């Protein structure tokens, strides 16, 4: 994609993705799934989809998380093996690496992390080697994260350490997204990455403010990796007096390639969420916004954007399935589930 892979080398995987797109579940299916009150009905609905090989018995509905992860990662790794440049797929896998890294660092630094690791692109033994200052082939940003986390152990109060580790790793993750953005040449994916970084960065800032975390910690451990003129820094300094005008200025400046309508939507969405406490609404709105942004690639015959769009759709589908199945298994009300449901890609 960015590293010399020619556009036409994506033809095979684009053709495959084109057919797989037909198998993605649509909004009508999720409505049907929500309206089923008995687990048996849900199983019948699932048996009419590609998931029928995973859900053959009602008891499988209780193991939905493992089975859906299996389905998701099998597909993701299959596509990754067929792409001429794996950056597009790594974007979806790196989220797990970040979670694994958080678990690892918290376990080492505070002894409070969970010793549970999701499927990853980076071998967790490499984290151990980095922690012990041994030479390993890891992205520079991850090495820096581990060494900074080690330093923060002595510089920060023990009760603040888990939050600081989160800030360091979230900052590194967003910096990593920026690095991916620089290597990608496809305009729509670049725009997506920038919007993603902005939205997730804003989420971290909101979380830190809701937790009344020391501003200096945020500045030192989250924003230190970003340039002085970076949009997150600007957003941070202006978050206290969040006006719609400020948001518009920052967004227009950083998303100059995006259409005016796109900017307006982002401004409206973010500014409407500044005054509220952390709620699911922001995540639902931003996830829908990002999916709407990437949806036009469905009409591109081939290329990395086509694959990226499908993977966004697949990720949303698995999220929705986990939400509905989890909600149904734990007997959560339909209304609560419905308002958290994301838009489907197809």
């Amino acid at each position, binding site marked *: 994609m960015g590293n010399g892979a020619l556009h*036409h*080398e994506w*033809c*095979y*995987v*684009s*053709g*495959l*993705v*084109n*057919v*797989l*797109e*037909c198998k993605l579940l649509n909004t009508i299916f999720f409505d049907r799934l929500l309206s089923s009150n008995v687990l048996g009905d849900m199983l019948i609905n699932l048996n009419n989809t590609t998931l029928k090989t995973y859900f053959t018995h009602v008891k499988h509905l209780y193991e939905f998380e493992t089975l859906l992860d299996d389905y998701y990662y099998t597909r993701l790794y299959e596509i990754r093996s067929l792409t001429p440049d794996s950056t597009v797929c790594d974007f979806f896998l790196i989220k797990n690496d970040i979670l694994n890294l958080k678990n690892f660092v918290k376990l080492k630094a505070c002894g409070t992390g969970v010793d549970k690791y999701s499927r990853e692109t980076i071998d967790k033994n490499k984290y151990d080697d980095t922690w012990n200052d041994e030479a390993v082939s890891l992205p520079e940003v991850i090495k820096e994260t581990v060494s900074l986390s080690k330093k923060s152990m002595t510089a920060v109060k023990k009760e603040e350490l888990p939050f600081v580790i989160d800030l360091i790793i979230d900052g590194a993750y967003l910096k990593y997204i920026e690095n991916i953005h620089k290597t990608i040449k496809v305009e729509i994916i670049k725009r997506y990455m920038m919007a993603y970084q902005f939205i997730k960065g804003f989420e971290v800032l909101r979380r830190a403010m809701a937790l009344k975390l020391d501003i200096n910690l945020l500045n030192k451990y989250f924003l230190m990796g970003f340039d002085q003129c970076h949009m997150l820094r600007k957003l941070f300094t202006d978050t206290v007096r969040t006006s719609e005008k400020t948001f518009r200025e920052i967004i227009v400046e950083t998303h100059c390639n995006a259409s005016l309508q796109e900017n307006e939507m982002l401004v409206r969405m973010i500014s409407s969420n500044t005054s509220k406490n952390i709620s699911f609404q922001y995540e639902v709105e931003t996830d829908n916004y990002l999916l709407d942004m990437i949806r036009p690639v469905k009409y591109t*015959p*081939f290329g990395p954007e086509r694959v990226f769009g499908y993977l966004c759709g697949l990720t949303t589908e698995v999220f929705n399935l986990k939400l509905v199945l989890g909600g149904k298994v734990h007997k959560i009300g339909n209304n609560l589930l419905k308002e958290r449901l994301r838009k489907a890609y197809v």
Partner: protein
Amino acid sequence: MIELLKLYFVQTGCGWAILGAIIVVTVSCLGSAKGILIASSQAAGVLSEKPELFGKMLVLMALPGTQGFYGFIGAIMIALRTGVIAGHISISPSVGLAILAIAICMGIVEYFTALMQAKAATAAINLTGKQPEEGGRAILIPALVETYAVIALLISILLITWLTKEGGISYSPRTGTEIW
């Protein structure tokens, strides 16, 4: 060697015409090969999930290959009309250069139409992959691009024929004699 070059490029236009024939066939075939690579890769991706669509995909995969044949026809036409095959060369250097220009233009058109057709074919392959019953109509999408490749071939044939006809622009009392 210099004498031979003089014979082909200065005394007659035979060398230019042969060069044109080589260029048109090479460029067209390269375009077609790349076009087929694009279309067949995309079709292979679809077939990996829906192998029953092979019949419908075959036409779409083969469509960008026609430009290579048009280039081949163009090259044969040049060789026939300039007397290269018959061993009866009767064209002046200026006509040879004109034929070279025609061949280059035709080669460019065939090359790019093959690529454009391949892209249209990938869209048609996607359509057929999603809605197999639309396969018949989907063939029309890349077939529309074919029109321009055919136009380039026809106009090239007409121009070559006009340039090389007896008593036409190619007639030259100085070089019109039998050389071989």
